[in-house]
Structures are given as structure tokens and as C-alpha cells.
């Protein structure tokens, strides 16, 4: 008798819970008299969506890596190097499409190297990718000769434009790419053997190996896929800035990791979801956007974001403990 209504509330809670943090953040700023009227306007939402693309693409890959029990600290350097390579190629006169492909492949290559070293040298991903963080950043600066690379404007730079070319697109092509890839990766994680194997490896690698999962190959594969997404993120960064900047995105790896963890990814592996990570990305993006619109000083913003990260994960934990 007394249990009935409780269970119903529980069900509703469970449905809403993953979005709770996001809803809270949006509600918070929508209630602020200063920005109320502008916060939820289409133009601002478009801005936030476009700003999220780079972190979101990174988070798609990072979700795989984290579910698989790994981590990638070289993510931000990878983005920088890929954007420099794309700019370099286009600046050297190659067709834009080739620049785009080269940028993505650069990212994939770094992922491949990460995965190969992690599996072959049997070193913890933290260290390998931390080393790679310096290597890729150094390489980016080297190739760009410590400068921004000024590539001529091409259609690539339209990918992140908030006023896209065929106006019926409404959102920037980059935003559409992000949505499409999020759906694709969500399906891959849930409905393919590759996806199930990533979960198994992250949960207990020894068990996965014993059950016939090709752990080495799967790990190399997911690091590579993650790298390709970072490469794409790099190209998007180039598209947005119109220059290849080797100093871009410093520290962004922590934002990407935070997004995945806020979205329920577990750093000990075996848990996480694309949906969750995307929510994490948008929580952070709306927070930044809202704080800036409010004109709050940056230090307040830093403090608030720190608090929200802890709170979001704590909330998620409480929910899990209840359902468990």
C-alpha cells in the first residue's frame, strides 16, 4: 500500500534523472532576471550547440575509451595537431576535402599509436597518453612553426557557421555531424559485438580475454576510433577559428573527461553511455554560456563549474545506489 506511490515516483525519477543536472542548469539561468529573455532564444541555443561540437566529438570517442577502462589525456593535443594538419594541407594548396580527411586521419593515427603502445608495452593508458599529450602538442607547434597557420577560407570554414549555407539546415553542419555521430555511436555501443566487447573489457579485462574477446585488437580499435573523432574535432576547431592554431584547446581533455564522467561514465571502466556523455557536454556548455551571459567574473564561474561537476556526479551516485 505505502509502497505503490513510492515506486511510481521512482520510475518517473529514473526517467528524468539522467537529465536532471541539465534541467537544473537550464532552469537556473532561465530564472535569472538578467538573461531570462535571451537565454532560451533560438540564437543562443544555436550558439551553445555550435560551441559544444568540439567537446562533444571528443566526448564520443572518450566515452568508448573510458567504458573500455582507459583514458586519453592526449585528446586536446590531438585536436590541436589535427587542426594544424588540416590547415597546413589546405594552406599548401591541397583541396579542402583532402585537408579534412588528412586532419581526421592524423587524429586516427595518434589514437592508433596510443592503442598500440598501451596494448603492446602493457603500460597504463594514463602514462602513454600523457606522454602523447606532450608529443602531439610539440609536433603541432613544430609543424606550425610556433605560429597560427593562415589557411585560405574554404567550404570547410562553413561547417561551423551558425548561419549555414542552405538556410534550411538551421543548425551548423558541424552540429548535424555531431548529432548523427552520437546516434551512430550509441547504436554501435549497444547493438554491436564491438560495443559489447568494449564494456566487457572495461569491466574485467581478464574475463573478457578468457571469454574470447580479442582484447588487444578491440582496444587498439577503440583508441583509433576515438582518435578519428578527435581528428574530426580538430578539423571543426580549424573550421571555427579559420586558422590552424597549435596552442588551441589546452586543458580541454579535462573538460572532455568531465563530460563523460558527469554523464555516468566510470573511470574504472565498464560503465558509461553516449546519451549520458552528451548530457555532460551540454551541462558544461550551458553553464559556461549562462555564467558569461550573467557577466559573472571568471573565478566565480570556475568555482561554480567545480561545484556542479561534483554535484552532478553525486546526484548520479545517489540515484544508482537507490536503484541498486
Amino acid at each position, binding site marked *: 500500500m505505502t509502497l505503490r506511490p513510492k515506486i511510481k515516483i521512482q520510475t518517473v525519477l529514473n526517467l528524468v534523472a539522467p537529465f536532471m543536472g541539465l534541467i537544473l542548469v537550464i532552469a537556473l539561468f532561465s530564472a535569472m532576471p538578467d538573461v531570462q529573455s535571451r537565454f532560451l532564444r533560438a*540564437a543562443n541555443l544555436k550558439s551553445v550547440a555550435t560551441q559544444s561540437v568540439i567537446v562533444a566529438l571528443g566526448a564520443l570517442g572518450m566515452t568508448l575509451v573510458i567504458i573500455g577502462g582507459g583514458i586519453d589525456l592526449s585528446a586536446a593535443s590531438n585536436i590541436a595537431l589535427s587542426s594544424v594538419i588540416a590547415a597546413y594541407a589546405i594552406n599548401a594548396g591541397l583541396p579542402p576535402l583532402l585537408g579534412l580527411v588528412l586532419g581526421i586521419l592524423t587524429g586516427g593515427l595518434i589514437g592508433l599509436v596510443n592503442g598500440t603502445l598501451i596494448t603492446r608495452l602493457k603500460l597504463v593508458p594514463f602514462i602513454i597518453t600523457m606522454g602523447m599529450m606532450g608529443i602531439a602538442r610539440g609536433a603541432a607547434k613544430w609543424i606550425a612553426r610556433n605560429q597560427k597557420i*593562415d589557411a585560405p577560407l574554404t567550404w570547410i570554414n562553413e561547417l561551423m557557421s551558425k548561419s549555414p549555407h542552405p538556410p534550411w539546415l538551421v543548425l551548423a553542419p558541424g552540429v548535424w555531424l555531431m548529432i548523427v555521430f552520437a546516434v551512430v555511436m550509441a547504436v554501435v555501443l549497444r547493438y554491436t559485438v564491438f560495443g559489447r566487447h568494449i564494456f566487457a573489457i572495461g569491466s574485467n579485462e581478464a574475463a573478457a580475454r578468457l571469454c574470447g574477446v580479442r582484447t588487444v585488437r578491440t582496444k587498439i580499435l577503440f583508441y583509433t576510433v576515438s582518435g578519428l573523432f578527435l581528428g574530426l574535432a580538430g578539423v571543426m576547431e580549424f573550421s571555427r*577559428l579559420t586558422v590552424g*592554431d597549435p596552442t588551441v*584547446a589546452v586543458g580541454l581533455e579535462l573538460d572532455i573527461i568531465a563530460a563523460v564522467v558527469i554523464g555516468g561514465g566510470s573511470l574504472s571502466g565498464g560503465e558509461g553511455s553516449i546519451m549520458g556523455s552528451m548530457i555532460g557536454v551540454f551541462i558544461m556548455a550551458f553553464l559556461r554560456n549562462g555564467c558569461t551571459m550573467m557577466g559573472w*567574473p*571568471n573565478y566565480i564561474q570556475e568555482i561554480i563549474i567545480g561545484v556542479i561537476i561534483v554535484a552532478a556526479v553525486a546526484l548520479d551516485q545517489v540515484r544508482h545506489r537507490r536503484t541498486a
Partner: protein
Amino acid sequence: GGPKADAPVPAGAAAAGTTTNAAGAAPKTLTIAVIPKGTTHEFWKSIHAGAVQAGREMGVDVLWKGPQKEDDRAQQITVVEDVISRGVDGIVLAPLDDRALVRPVQDAGREKIPVVIMDSGLQGKDYLSFVATDNYQGGILAARRMGELLQGKGRIFRIRYQAGSASTTDRENGFLETLTKEFPAIKVLIQDQYAGATTETAYQLAENLLGRFPDVDGVFCPNESSTFGTLRALQEARLAGKVKFVGFDSSPKLVQALRDGHLHGIVLQNPVKMGYLGVLQIVKAIRGEKIPERIDTGVTLATLENMDTPEIKALLSPDLSILEK
């Protein structure tokens, strides 16, 4: 400082000592360390070019070495200590902090290594000469340009660079103080938002600010990365050209923006000259010549109208080809 460090090394004495040494030993080329605040901004590339140019002309080696993380005071101290350990003949330093770098510079004095300061000031008197732009003056130029563009009224943003950066803070202050004094009808909507170190962070900041105040009339930015980030945000929001925009420092994209009318004024320093004079002064001092204590390398305003004059052109697109070899 230590017991003897309080007495600054007299310029003449230090220089004389070094020269004697150099003369006494086999004719060895001098090595001058040039230590910027960072290595990746266009501004520092130009300083580098100037320094290399001077090095060529004077026949000295230039050791170019900045802190590994841009704008990290502690790392810059480490770099100064390390070049002292290496035993260079002179140091040209752009201190990241007017106080924190005092002790390393004193250490150099103790090792009889002369120091010339460039770009930003340093407390005390442990160096021979100070070669820099008057940053506050730069801010004044920008404010006057803004006032002129807006005909004395309107609403603007003052975007700041990074907390604790002295030269940009001077520019920001010069701008705001002049504006409030000379153009009281201009309202500064945002004056305390920091763009952060990279273009991307500046871009996001400007985008979010424009989201709230799409009808702003003018924007001021105090350095290249914040100017470029803001420019991208304005272009994206289709506000470039409509919003009056005054920035700082040059890069090819900013020159293009000036030409396109997206940017209405760039305050230019003369970094090539700064690097050149820095190295020139120190070599002169080592060779026993007397050098001035303060050299102002000047600020200039570039606009669409004057950008094709040879002087401005040289400042807008400095010749960096010397670094290629």
C-alpha cells in the same frame, strides 16, 4: 637578496669585466639569451626576428628560450636560472612579473651577466636598460579611436586578456580611463570578463556576450588572441563591420579584417624593433659603450586609411623571413 646583491652591478663595470674576459680568452662569439614570455604568439615571433636580425649584424649567437607553458612565472624563473647555469654572456628578458623575476635577475648580476629588460617592467635597478612599448599609451590610442568611431556615444565591451598579465592590464587601464575621462557618454557594458590564453576561449566568451547584447556598438580587445577570437565571433554573428572594433597587435587575419572593414583600428607595437634594440643594447653594453636606461619603441594606430603606407605596412606584416634559416 644576499649580502652583496643589494648593490646593483654598475653598467660600466659589468660590461667592462665581460669584455676583458672575452678579450683575454680566445676570440669567442658572444651568446645572448633572449627570454620572451611565451613562444607561440605572433608578437613574440616578431621579437625573435628582431633579435636574430641584431645578432646577425653584431656577430653574436642568440639563444631564444621562453617558458614552456605560456605566461608561467615560475617556469620563466627556471629558464633564467638555467641560462645563467649555461653561462651566457648577456640576457634580454621580457619579465612575466615585475617582482618575481627580480631575484633571478640579481642572480645573473652575481654571475656578472648583464641584463636588459624588454616589453614589461621590472622592479629594482639590477638591469642596464628597459626597452618597451608604452602600453598605457596604447590603451589611450585605442580609446580615442573608439570614441571617434562612435562619435562619443554608445555601448561597448572591454574584453580583458588574462588575470595578472601586466602589459595587457596597462592597455586595458589606459583604454578604460581615457574613455571614461574623454568620452563619458560611452557606456561600458562589460569590463571584467577575461578572454583567457587561447583564441578559442576568447571566441566563446565573445559569442556568449554577443548572445546577451547583440546590439552592442563597440568592442575593445587588448592583444592579438583576444582580438582574433572576438573577430571570429563577430563574423559568425554577422555583426562584423556593424560593431566598431578596435584591437591590438597584428597578424595576417587581422590585417585582412582591417581591409575588409571588420576591424576599425589596430594599435600596433613595434616588436621587431624591440627585439632588435634589446640585443643591440646588451651587446653595446658588453662592449663597454654607454646605453640609455629607457627606450620607448612606440605605439601606432593602424586604420583602413593608413594601412598601405610603408611604415604601417612594415608594422602590420613584419618580415619574419630571417627565422626561416
